[in-house]
């Protein structure tokens, strides 16, 4: 009887295996060093059994000529090798892999820590660094230590203003930032079936912030329906009885809006405890909360009013941007005073546009609040989309339940 990670990797927890990677992706950040390493390895063509992707999302568009030159070389490489290439404006790599690309049961490796995100589809998806990716470009395979798994048993349904983000911050708070290091999280129980794909992606995404190697959902009817709409016929994965290293139980009905206090993602407090903290910026977007449902929720909450603080909204992908244009969500955001960015990572990683100044405070829907991450001397509080909306309208941290 196996965990989902054991089933997909085909070996028992603790074993070391070499496996072909079904899909491998990298972005404009990690791609640069990966290309250097691949050339040094003697690389001249890509592995035959793997689908390769390169997505420009970290500094999109380029902020200066150094970045532009590095991106130019990478773009040439992508065209030369015929890998799937998504240029600036297409969106965040993890989101693009989640729009009908990654399928249940696959082994997926991304050169980015949040490559755990497509685990929401019942794939074994994990992150590596640039040189590991270069090795996968060369050979199509890599080594894995099959992880032990932590069972995250979900019951009930989210209620009130609580979102998947609050649920994610709840489990990161319980586990701590290294509570699942070298391990995989498996989100199971009837509560998991009540979550949409967008919500599952949030939970899988944050598994990285507990140190996990992967964060998996079993593919179910919700997964099958989502992938069918994108042209894929897949079967649900039926969980077997299996042994977890440890288990945590969460009743979704107990989840309340939370904020992660800088500089740690596991310093989690009810929004009410921080209520009234003055803000300089609100940021809505990223591989955590930049999906259409997030933008639509934010727009619904601010529609017809004006944000009281500078608010940057960055759709996670072109598909999301286009849908937000079609449905009028984008117009509502702009009317409410929000500023829009190109689909991509936006200011999350502090490389370019939207960074914070000394002493500035941001409420962000992203997944990291490390010291100086979004700019030297800036502080990042992490919260849900509804918390971001209530806070943007008030200009200070505000509970969405109070608003």
């Amino acid at each position, binding site marked *: 009887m196996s965990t989902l990670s054991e089933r997909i990797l085909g070996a028992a927890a603790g074993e070391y295996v070499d496996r072909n990677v079904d899909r491998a992706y990298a972005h404009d950040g990690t791609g640069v060093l990966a290309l250097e390493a691949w050339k040094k*390895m003697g690389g001249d063509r890509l592995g035959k059994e793997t689908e390769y992707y390169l997505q420009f999302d970290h500094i999109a568009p380029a902020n200066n000529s150094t970045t532009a030159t590095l991106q130019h070389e990478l773009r040439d490489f992508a065209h030369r090798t015929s890998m799937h290439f998504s240029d600036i404006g297409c969106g965040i790599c993890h989101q693009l892999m989640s729009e009908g690309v990654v399928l249940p049961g696959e082994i997926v490796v991304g050169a980015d820590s949040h490559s755990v995100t497509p685990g929401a589809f019942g794939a074994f998806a994990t992150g590596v*660094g640039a040189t590991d990716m270069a090795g996968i470009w060369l050979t199509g395979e890599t080594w894995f230590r099959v992880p032990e798994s932590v069972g995250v048993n979900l019951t009930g349904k989210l209620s009130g203003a609580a979102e998947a983000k609050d649920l994610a911050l709840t489990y990161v708070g319980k586990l701590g930032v*290294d509570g699942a290091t*070298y391990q995989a999280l498996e989100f199971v129980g009837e509560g998991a079936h009540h979550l949409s794909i967008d919500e599952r992606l949030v939970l899988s995404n944050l598994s990285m912030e507990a140190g996990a190697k992967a964060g998996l959902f079993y593919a179910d009817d919700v997964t099958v329906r989502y992938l069918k709409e994108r042209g894929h016929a897949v079967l649900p994965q039926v969980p077997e009885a299996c042994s977890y290293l440890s288990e945590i139980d969460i009743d979704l009905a107990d989840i309340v809006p939370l904020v992660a206090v800088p500089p740690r993602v596991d310093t989690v407090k009810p929004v009410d405890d921080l209520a009234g903290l003055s803000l300089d910026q609100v940021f809505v977007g990223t591989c955590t909360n930049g999906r259409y449902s997030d933008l639509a929720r934010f727009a619904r909450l601010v529609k017809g009013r004006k944000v009281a603080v500078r608010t940057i909204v960055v759709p996670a992908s072109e598909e999301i941007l286009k849908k937000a244009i079609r449905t009028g969500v984008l117009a509502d955001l702009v009317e409410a005073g929000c500023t829009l960015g190109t689909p991509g990572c936006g200011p999350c990683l502090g*490389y370019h546009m939207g960074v914070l100044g000394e002493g500035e405070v941001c409420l962000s829907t992203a997944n990291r609040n*490390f010291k*100086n*991450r979004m700019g030297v001397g800036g502080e990042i509080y992490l919260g849900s989309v509804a918390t971001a909306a209530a806070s943007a309208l008030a200009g200070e941290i505000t509970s969405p339940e109070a608003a």
Partner: protein
Amino acid sequence: MQGKGTAVCLPADIDTDVIIAGRYLRTRDRSIWATHVFEDLDPTLAARLKGAVIVAGRNFGCGSSREQAAIALREAGGVAVIAPSFARIFFRNAINLGLPLIESDLTCKEGSTVAFDISEGWVETEGTQHTIRPLSPRMQEILMAGGLVEYWRVHW
């Protein structure tokens, strides 16, 4: 693989943003990473990394997958990093770049001499030898080769 250096003590949960900040990543000039390593934690630290064995708390290297973090430590002259646990991507990155990592609960004394032998599985400081958790055979092979680039040059 053997090594020796001077202990530099660091706390738990050192993230890769703190090792090398995002604002310095877009370059090919590796000396920039060596110069600015740990800048946001302690601006004097970079100068003390030459010949240093970093002895840190658990979960060293958490956060972003940026390989520049491991490169910066090596370029600044770091010999090895010892910690009770490492974030897994940093773990792979460091070994892939030939920077030895040692899983051990060693208590750090700033400035003391720390010696290690990864093949034999020990680390020694202040006259006491401690056993270490061994690297997997594959990670040892990659490390002995000098990194993953050198490993695949031979094995592919």
